[in-house]
């Protein structure tokens, strides 16, 4: 209802405005209506992931009213659909401008999901009798989908030059259902997938005032945002812990929070065509949450002692950025910079006492300092050389044992534009990261050998080459290649290497103003090598644990069932994509045929190697495993096909018609979802993200009137 009021107000103000000023004016625009008849088979949610294509008529209106002093633009798209969008922008030339916007975005995940719970859509999920029914035909059916509505408006004042002022507000509402999951018991057990309600509202206010007149620029900005969640928790009856309907388990949902940010930006021009720029900012995020004093575990409710019943979350950030840019003489461009970013966690540390265990929440924070330089040289023979160096140091608090990273990044790009019809560029960048890991000294702990990839020491080399050709005015052709090789040189357990290649090719050719041909081809290959160690023991774990990956494999039968062995996995991902298209101007400015075909394909593979002696006689859990049957060939495979033909006929300068056909196909083949079973192994799943494959045939016919 609210959206209708806003849209109505926007249209009314637009009409009123048109008649408000008696002056020379020009009104132009376009109204189009497109009738769509889709036939979709399969995963309709994936097809309409961010769209709302269904039988019906899609109306688009665009008007531009430009007078000598004032202007007003209006745009409406997809009226009445879940993707509808409206916008008004107006103002007085050179003095002020304002805008109002309304926009809807759907995000569809899965249609026809199922759950044994009743109350789906709310914040309390239950079921009548324990255990819940495993007959999915008796379950509740629902859609995992989120609708986002965004209302906004703003005002910009420029008439007081050199001063300016900006203000804008917006509200975003999100509603829908999203899949979350909970472990059935406190230390694991079955997985229970829960449809969590999304009822979010975010309000934002942005203000900026500034002064800009050569050689100065200063601005002061303020941003304030509040996030509100109608549901702080999702209550659910847990089928794993034997709870009664009255003993509900609780899943916590994102808390309300407030965020503000203040920033000062500035710049001053200096002698020798130099400029000093700065950006200083400070922000704070706060959230106060009443904590739960108990939780449901197998056998009943566990009560815990907390040093404070309320968590006062507070995270502040500070950032300082300075950059000096200079072009003292034509062949040299220089940039020198220093950046500082600090995240300070000022939340309260709460001590939890849970039976014999006592622990506190760590207060993770960090600071990042970075400085560097970039120098660009114009060399003889149309060569341009850019060299850059950056040093960064990240210091952390309360993140396991990883206090510091030091990064040194060197790079150079060489560009040649010596020919009228070609520009070529090659580049190289090297990153050397040192991770100051303070892992436990005890070699009998696995953690001793682990290096987490986001902070691990690494050498990364990146090579790239790009060639752009434009031999004649209407022909462009380009080739690009990039290779990135990351070697985590100190990692024993974890991600050891990451290699990526990319190749792109593009072309565009207009022939005799009658035919435009365009094509692209993309190829990307990713290879990730990961080395791991399994140490599990069902009973009586030996002491010390055989954690050292240098140890030989240790496999013992039940009852101890100890397994300790290394394994590695190489994940590869091969992506291909191409697009071909043609615009055929059959009758110039009268009849145009557009043809387009796009295709993408991705092959994912996981190549596992178990460094152990397979012996089903000793290890019953091997269940027939051999080195040859543990790989996964459909590790996220998919293919998309798209065909479109569209014929446009301009009957007059103001009236045109178009008609066409689109075929889309998406084929997914994923080992983690193939053979989906809602209740396998006692787990309770809901079908989230299953069966996304679809095939769609869409016919469309449109008429457009321009005025």
């Amino acid at each position, binding site marked *: 209802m609210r959206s209708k009021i806003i849209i109505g107000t926007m249209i009314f103000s637009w009409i009123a405005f048109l008649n408000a000023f008696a002056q020379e004016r020009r009104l132009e625009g376009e109204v189009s209506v497109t009738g769509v008849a889709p036939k979709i088979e399969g995963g309709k949610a994936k097809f309409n992931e961010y769209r709302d294509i269904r039988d019906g008529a899609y109306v688009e209106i665009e008007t531009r009213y430009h007078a000598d002093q004032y202007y007003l633009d209006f745009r409406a798209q997809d009226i009445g659909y879940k*993707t509808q969008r409206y916008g008004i922008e107006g103002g007085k030339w050179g003095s002020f401008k304002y805008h109002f916007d309304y926009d809807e975005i759907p995000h569809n995940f899965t249609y026809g999901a199922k759950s044994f719970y009743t109350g789906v859509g709310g914040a309390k999920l239950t079921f009548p009798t324990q255990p819940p029914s495993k007959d999915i035909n008796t379950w509740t059916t629902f859609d995992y989908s989120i609708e986002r509505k965004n209302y906004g408006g703003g005002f910009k004042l420029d008439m007081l030059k050199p001063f300016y002022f900006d203000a804008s507000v917006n509200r975003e509402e999100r509603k829908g259902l999203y899949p979350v999951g909970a472990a059935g018991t406190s230390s694991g057990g079955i997985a229970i997938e829960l449809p969590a309600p999304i009822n979010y509202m975010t309000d934002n206010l942005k203000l900026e005032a500034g002064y800009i007149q050569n050689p100065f620029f200063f601005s002061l900005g303020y941003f304030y945002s509040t*996030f509100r969640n109608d549901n702080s928790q999702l209550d659910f009856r847990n089928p794993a812990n034997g709870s009664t309907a009255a003993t509900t388990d609780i899943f916590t949902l994102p808390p309300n929070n407030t965020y503000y940010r203040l920033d000062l930006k500035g710049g*001053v021009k200096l002698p020798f065509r130099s400029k000093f720029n700065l950006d200083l900012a400070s922000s704070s995020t706060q959230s106060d949450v009443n904590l739960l004093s108990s939780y449901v575990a197998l056998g009943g409710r566990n009560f815990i002692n907390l040093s404070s019943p309320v968590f006062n979350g507070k995270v502040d950030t500070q950032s300082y950025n300075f950059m000096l840019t200079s072009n003292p003489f034509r062949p040299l461009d220089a940039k020198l910079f220093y950046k500082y970013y600090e995240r300070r966690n000022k939340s309260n540390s709460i001590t939890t006492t*849970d039976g014999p265990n006592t622990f506190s929440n760590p207060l993770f924070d960090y600071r990042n300092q970075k400085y560097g330089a970039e120098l660009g040289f114009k060399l003889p023979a149309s060569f341009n050389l850019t060299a850059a160096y950056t040093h960064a140091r990240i210091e952390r608090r309360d993140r396991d044992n990883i206090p510091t990273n030091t990064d040194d990044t060197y790079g150079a790009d060489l560009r040649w534009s010596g020919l009228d019809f070609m520009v070529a560029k090659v580049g190289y960048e090297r990153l050397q990261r040192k991770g100051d890991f303070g892992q436990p000294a005890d070699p009998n702990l696995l953690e001793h050998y*682990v290096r987490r990839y986001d902070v691990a020491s690494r050498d990364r080399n990146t090579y790239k080459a790009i060639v752009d050709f434009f031999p004649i005015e209407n022909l462009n052709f380009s080739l690009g290649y990039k290779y990135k090789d990351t070697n985590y040189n100190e990692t024993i357990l*974890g991600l050891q290497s990451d290699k990526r290649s990319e190749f792109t090719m593009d072309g565009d050719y207009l022939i005799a103003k009658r035919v435009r041909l365009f094509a692209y081809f993309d190829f990307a290959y990713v290879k*990730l090598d990961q080395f791991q160690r399994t140490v599990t023991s069902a009973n009586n774990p030996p002491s010390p644990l055989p954690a050292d990956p240098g140890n030989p494999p240790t496999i013992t039968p039940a009852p101890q069932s100890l397994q300790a062995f290394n394994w590695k996995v190489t994940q590869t991902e091969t992506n291909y994509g191409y697009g071909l298209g043609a615009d055929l101007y059959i009758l110039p400015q009268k009849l145009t045929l557009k043809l387009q075909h796009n295709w993408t394909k991705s092959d994912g593979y996981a190549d596992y190697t178990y460094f152990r002696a397979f012996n089903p006689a000793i290890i019953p859990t091997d269940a027939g495993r051999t080195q040859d049957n543990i790989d996964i060939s459909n590790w996220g495979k998919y293919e998309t096909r798209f065909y479109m033909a569209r014929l446009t006929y301009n009957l007059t300068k103001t009236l045109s018609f178009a008609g066409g056909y689109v075929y889309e196909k998406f084929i*997914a083949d994923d080992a*983690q979802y193939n053979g989906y079973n809602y209740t396998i192994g006692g787990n309770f799943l809901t079908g989230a993200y299953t069966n996304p494959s679809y095939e769609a045939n869409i016919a469309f016919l449109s008429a457009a009137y321009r005025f």
Partner: protein
Amino acid sequence: MKKYFVSISFFPILIFLWAIFLPAEVRGSDGVVGVEICKGCHEDHYNSYMRSTHAKKAIPNSPANLEGCETCHGPGAAHVEKSGERGVGIFIFSKKIADARSKSAKCLSCHGESRDLSFWDVAKHPSVDVSCDNCHTVHSMTPKNLKATQPDLCNICHRSIRAQQNKQSHHPIRDGKLKCTDCHDHHGGFGQHMIKAESVNELCYKCHADKRGPFMWQHPPVEENCLSCHTAHGSNVSKLLVSRVPLLCQACHADTGHPGTGNTSFETFQGRTPSNKMFARACLNCHSTIHGSNGPSVQGRRFVR
């Protein structure tokens, strides 16, 4: 010490005085022929100019209040005298005739005093010879005078980003619901990769405010950089993850028990020993609050509530 302080204080005062008395840029008016002469040969361009914002007299300092076409193209007399050949005796925005810096300088002579371009020299674009006319044309009525709509315009150069946008898991960029400029400051800013925030997380939180927390139980890589696990433009893995769960999680969590267990084809739905650590969302089947939790005791600490 005091002497040093006085000396250091004197330096910004010098800069200020220099800036105050900085000579204004001189625009020559010799050889100007006027828009009517230009129209005689370039009527199409003239008409499009007249429909554009540049022709609005209400805007102080617009070309309409200066020299019309010649505000950007320079005085046209020499061009007229030399028979009007393309690019002869006049400035045109052609990559074969003018370099990127010269072309942008023309635009910046007016738009340099615009807050949107106040950090243009900080941006990556000018240092790789991208000029204003690569993206904008004054001879059009498109929004912001752009030569194409986003993301197609940006993808002309950023081709590997185009390939990522075409992947099955993606932000709604190609669907027209998110623009490159919603996240990137194409005209220059201090953020890494010209993002419109001081850090990646502060950028992501603008839309994903539910992830802001602050949570009692934090997952440090999440707090430090969303891009530790996610990629921004597109991925083959759902939720824009950089690689597939459980292997993504196991790259860091290799402890005893299930974190370090190598789940293979045997643990999938169709395997002989299906496991909820492998099928469907794998680790995330249970550890759903991976972005942070206020859950009680070990349930919050392990991100399962």
